[in-house]
């Protein structure tokens, strides 16, 4: 029996599995505290930022796919839609991670002790409080949506939730990615963050569907098509940012691009992201078989998720370091948040995901 067929609140997470996830998280924490933090404090905290951006995008995007499917009258997802609610388990950890980033802001963030032309907007307490409140509001909306959705409703709050997702991740993109370099700006960066967040989430959704063996070939096919569509959309959004910046070559804009595109070693990472994350699905998901077979779709989704983690790292790290310092900080923090995320999702799956029945049109 697939985990998808389990009734809500009827099971328990097997102890060895739960323990394995917690051990992974604990190991990550220990290594981060004992090795990464003493070695390079700013890099260790920025590793938390990178993983926060990745796992929060994954979790919030997963939860947001449910109202998107509901409001677009998508019937293809069927019971697979239940999987999206597993993302909600990361709500509190994401808020805790953001609160920690605030608490340690002075150690890693570039806004302290500087007079910036954005004034109060980039005043750290205002910035972090704004982000924390908005993210909390999003999770409250998600909670309320799931509550309504279990009753076969949720269109009204679902629409608000989609708007909320776009708004919150726009602001998070502006604050926690764009503002890392307060001189640099791009009006599309917020849009890029929420579009790529949905891309991360649909890859995560496909991987979960394959792991729980709950999908039909047609459903895998549709998930594969969605991954392909969002890879194209994400590529378009990134290209639309890069080309005007590259073209104009203005000092205050181009300095974001130059270390990433023009010089070793980061340009190698850029090539990897281009070939795997942005253009990869065009080749990997070209055939029908690669989309319909879980043995192809699962590994492709996993590869794309790895690539998208690297893309989040690529968004943040080159702003602060010209060298490719990938070390214990990134690995340990990834293990910590992955352990927490995996524990939450596994717990939700084994416990039994909520039923998401289809109701009448409320509008």
């Amino acid at each position, binding site marked *: 029996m697939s985990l998808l067929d389990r009734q809500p609140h009827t099971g328990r997470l097997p102890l060895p599995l739960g323990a394995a996830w917690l051990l992974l998280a604990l190991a990550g924490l220990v290594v981060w505290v004992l090795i990464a933090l003493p070695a390079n404090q700013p890099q260790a905290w920025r590793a938390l930022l990178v993983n926060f951006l990745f796992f929060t995008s994954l979790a919030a995007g997963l939860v947001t796919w449910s109202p998107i499917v509901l*409001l677009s009258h998508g019937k293809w997802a069927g019971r697979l839609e239940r999987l999206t609610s597993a993302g909600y388990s990361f709500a509190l950890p994401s808020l805790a991670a953001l609160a920690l980033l605030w608490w340690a802001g002075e150690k890693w963030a570039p806004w302290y002790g500087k007079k910036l032309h954005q004034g109060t907007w980039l005043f750290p307490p205002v910035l972090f409080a704004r982000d924390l409140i908005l993210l909390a509001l999003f999770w409250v909306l998600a909670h309320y949506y799931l509550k309504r959705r279990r009753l076969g409703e949720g269109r009204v709050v679902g629409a608000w939730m989609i708007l909320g997702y776009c708004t919150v991740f726009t602001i998070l993109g502006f604050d926690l990615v764009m503002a890392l370099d307060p001189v640099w700006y791009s009006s599309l960066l917020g849009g890029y963050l929420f579009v790529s967040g949905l891309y991360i989430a649909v890859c995560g959704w496909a991987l979960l569907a394959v792991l729980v063996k709950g999908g039909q070939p047609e459903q895998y096919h549709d998930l594969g098509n969605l991954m392909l569509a969002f890879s194209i959309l994400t590529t378009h959004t990134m290209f639309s*940012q890069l080309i005007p910046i590259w073209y104009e070559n203005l000092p205050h804009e181009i300095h974001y691009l130059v270390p990433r595109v023009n010089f070793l070693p980061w340009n190698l990472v850029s090539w990897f992201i281009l070939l795997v994350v942005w253009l990869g699905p065009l080749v990997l998901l070209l055939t029908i078989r690669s989309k319909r077979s879980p043995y192809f779709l699962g590994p492709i989704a996993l590869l794309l998720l790895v690539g998208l983690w690297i893309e989040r790292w690529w968004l943040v790290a080159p702003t602060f370091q010209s060298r490719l310092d990938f070390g214990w900080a990134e690995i340990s923090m990834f293990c910590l948040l992955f352990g927490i995320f995996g524990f939450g999702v596994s717990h939700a799956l084994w416990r039994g995901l909520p039923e998401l029945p289809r109701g009448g049109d409320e509008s």
Partner: protein
Amino acid sequence: MNLQIRALGGLLPVLLQVLEAAVPDLDYATINEDVLSPMSPPGPLYYAVLLMLAGGIGLLALPWMYQIHTGMGVAGISHPVGWGVYIANFVFWVGIAHSGTLISAILFLVRAKWRDSVSRAAEAMTIFAIMTAGLFPMVHLGRVWVIAFILPYPSQRQIWPNFISPLVWDVLAVSTYFTVSLIFFTIGLIPDLAAARDRAEEKLGYDSVKARIYRALSGGWSGAGSQWRHYSRSYLYFAALATPLVISVHSVVSWDFAMANLPGWHTTLFAPYFVAGAIHSGLAMVLVLMIPMRKLLKLERLVLPEHLDAVARTTLVTTAIMGYSYLVEPFTSWYSGDKFEWQFTIWRATGWPSIMFWSLFPLNVLIPAAMAFKKVRQSRIALFVIGLCVVAGMWIERVMLITSSTSHDFMPHNWGPYFPTWVEILITLGSFGFFLFLFFLFSRTLPTIPLSDLKGQLAEEELREAPPCPCPEPDFVVGAEGTAVTAVFPDAGTLVLAVSALCHAGFQRMETFTPVKIDKIQQIMGQERSPVRRWALTGAVIGCISGFGLAIGASGVNGLIVGGKNPLSIIPYCIPAFEGTVLLGSIANLAAVIVHSRLFGTTPMPRYRRSFSNDKFGVVVAGDAPEVGRARTLLASFSPEVLDVAP
């Protein structure tokens, strides 16, 4: 207050709803008649309106001739505003063209069935809007006879185009879009033209002019299973190729501006903002055209209120994106700390463009947001008026974006106002006449609603489960020679069962004739997927290589450093490569469907009957006399309307 909150709560749930509207409650023959009857000779009123619209074209042509004769001085474009209403009109009309591909291709891929009732009109609108848009670079150029200089062709005069220039990308993108849209439109028309051909042959005679024209245009389409098999795959690939194209075209148009170092133009948001705006205006134009058209052509039974409702709901999504863009743009301007950007934003809100600036949010966001209310969506008048508001709002937006930046750049001594002259105003009004003239002409000469798609919805409801064929892949083609039995059924479900039974009984040579595509038949017969996919892929790969090759080759010949860029710059060359991919992929796909579906004749296949394009489903089994006799007995058990054995 409580009521207001509830109303506000009701505003959002529909933002992303794309309804699957109900299938019109009609039979095959009625759909056929309803769609094809407007193609009968029109009355004097139609000709009067057509004449009036032709006068509209004169409104465009005469001032243009005056401008050519007198010189560009008669237009308001002068220092510092070199791009005025002409370029704004170009951007506006390219934008209008976008919803056709959205409705046809993107909604086809996401299986939104409501598209079927409006897709043909939207596709036609796309073609006519690009034709209208294409006039404006010529009008703007002044010396229209040197228009060929902008085409990227190898020139003996060594004027190779610069593939780093957004203007060259523009030529490539818009011409590719026009070509692909035209192919997509034409391919979609073929089964319906066959229905028009059969109707004209029946009503007006085999040798009538109309029958001859439709016979030539339908390419001998017979609705045979062996044709549908390739046609439906090919149509899917057209949709898949056209979808990224629609996004790329207005992105490229937006880069005409975003690549310039001017306040208000140089912003990274422009590409998605322009694309969303284009689709927004295109959907509004669909409402403006479809609401009177369904009334005038008596299409109320096919274009249901639910279909208009679905267009309105889709418009709400673009409304949300427009609202997002209107808020993010000034925010980034402030955030940047760039004093030129910020002073420009303030000037646009307070200077001479302020009337345009402040009208945008109400016209393009607040008024269309009213469509969130069911009552508004149910009122055709309200939808029509909202559509007009959005069309007007989007035109104003284009004028404001294009004219204000050059009017107020970095240097105060370079500032200056812009106002279009009577020549520009008349040419603009004339472009609407040109567009409406073409659309009006289309409404009485071609099927305005995709017959086969609408009938396909009925067929889907009739289909029943049938086991796949256990025998090796049967031969799908039946020639004129030999004995054959033909069975005619009134519905798709019985045909599928009959084909399955024939297959199980070991019959190897058979052909089906249907007015709609029925994928189930291919599934039952275990037909391999159509080879058109290999054609399309090969064309796309060659197109990609050619696009890069053309750009790199041109840079090698010129070796010019323009704007400080390396002549060999791969980042901008991705654009010609992309356009080449879509263009050659589509052309190869077209060639594949013509070859494999044998669309190069004028006469339908042997054993074809006219009713097969209307409301009947047939199967023909060929073989020797005993085999045909056995097939006849088997088919008789399905109670066909007609059961013929022909030598």
